[in-house]
């Protein structure tokens, strides 16, 4: 029983951490996109290259956010099944 309680606590902790990671990833994705917008204002080839890398990072962070959301949802499903 104690074992099950531990699993439940661990799942709750994972769920909380995943929400934190997805929030950070989402925020950083936005920041990277803003950097892209700033850097492309100057019409400078070198800055544009950096901007493109930022834009790509923004997408990959967006992917992490989606993965975290999906994992958090899965944990919620497991938690609700465990309660039943």
């Amino acid at each position, binding site marked *: 029983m104690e074992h099950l309680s531990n699993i439940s606590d661990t799942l709750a902790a994972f769920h909380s951490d995943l929400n934190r990671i997805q929030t950070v990833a989402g925020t950083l994705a936005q920041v990277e996109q803003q950097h892209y917008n700033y850097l492309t204002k100057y019409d400078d080839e070198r800055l544009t290259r950096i901007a493109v890398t930022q*834009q*790509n990072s923004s997408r990959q962070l967006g*992917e992490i956010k989606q993965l975290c959301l999906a994992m958090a949802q899965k944990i919620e499903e497991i938690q609700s099944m465990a309660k039943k």
Partner: protein
Amino acid sequence: MGLLAKLLRGVVNEVADDTVRTMLRDQYVENLFELVPVMKKVSPINLAEIGMRAAKGTPVSRPLGSHLHFSPWEKLLFSPVHLFRFPTPENVGINTSVKIGPRAKKPLSISIPVMIAAMSFGGALSKHAKIALARAATMAGTATNTGEAGLLEEERQAAQLLIGQYNRGGWLNSKEKYSRLDAIEIQLGQGAQGSSSQRTPAKNIGEEYREVFGLKEGQDALIHSRLNGVNTKEDFIELVRRLKEETGVPVGLKIAATHHLEKELQIVLDAGCDFVTVDGAEGGTHGGEPILEDDVGLPTIYAVSRAAQFLAGKGAGGDVSLLATGGLVTPGQMLKAMALGADAVYIGTAAVMAMVGDQITRALPFEPPTGMVVYTGKMTDQLDVAKSAQNLFYFLNACIREMELVAATLGKVALADISKEDMVALDPFLAKALKIDLGFVPPERQDVFYDGETTH
């Protein structure tokens, strides 16, 4: 103007006058202008290939697939929104990620829905080219594909996500090799060559190629028309189940698009494949016989649409990922393939062109540009791997950015949300075939266009 220039100008003028006079006066039998109608009738490509066949007596090996444009992508347009539904605000990020094989124990997640197509080391590309493709894919957060080859260690190391082809040559089919992949694509055919067998003669196989493929000196590399051990539907089902169980990664099938598509897809479902790759007739290759490239298969546009409709009809739309490939060159074509139902696309020719980019000048005018990237090319050492990876990464980024702009004008927040309801067709037959509204008439009058209406 100098004396020499004046003299030269005079000579050119005389020659030009004489040429035009001859072309306009002489009859065809003694006129070089005869070549113009001949070229128009036969086409320069066919004329050259007639000559090549006549010179050697063997089938021509044409690089990069068919020159024919089977899929009328330009007859589909996306429909922007303004008030009826609002466009996506510019500060909202568009989700571009995709999960391939969501039912697999270890699905393949990619940041962008564009992957690098199967182009094998040795059979097609040089080691430098393969490494550059893998590096670019890694930078962009997407996957690259081994093609029909063995496991090239340098490619595995450079690729964060590597899809490997369980192939008809048998070069990647040992557990020790396929266990190191992020997804397994069982290769039974390709758009440019159908399911025909292919042979790379031993004279074109170097030491490293032999090592990666496990070939003996003097041995040809042979791709059989069938996969060893798969002679019945049940054999295939058993193979898929075994690979899934042994690896946990997504296991899928790649086929050349065909009018028998639905029958093939039913077996894909029976086997429990995690994804299916449909390679349209426009698919490229390092070198294929023109008859297989031009006269065999099914165009990508119809293949994707039919496959998506079949999977949806069987309730497998979300479970079995559909990967489209074959002649997708522009971001618009790639996005239209996704709107028709593909979860992601592979690009080959465009990726190679992007990778070479402005390095093309090193090959021209005395060598073809492919000479820098194909295994048997004379200038493979001239390809700058870092520059090539960067070029392709920029190309991928630009393509995805263009797709994001379309998503925003459609009022979408994810590329995956774009569907055929966001498009119109400019051809009645295409509209009917793809089940897309015809752009000539409003949505509520679609049937009237086809059935006719009585005038009052």
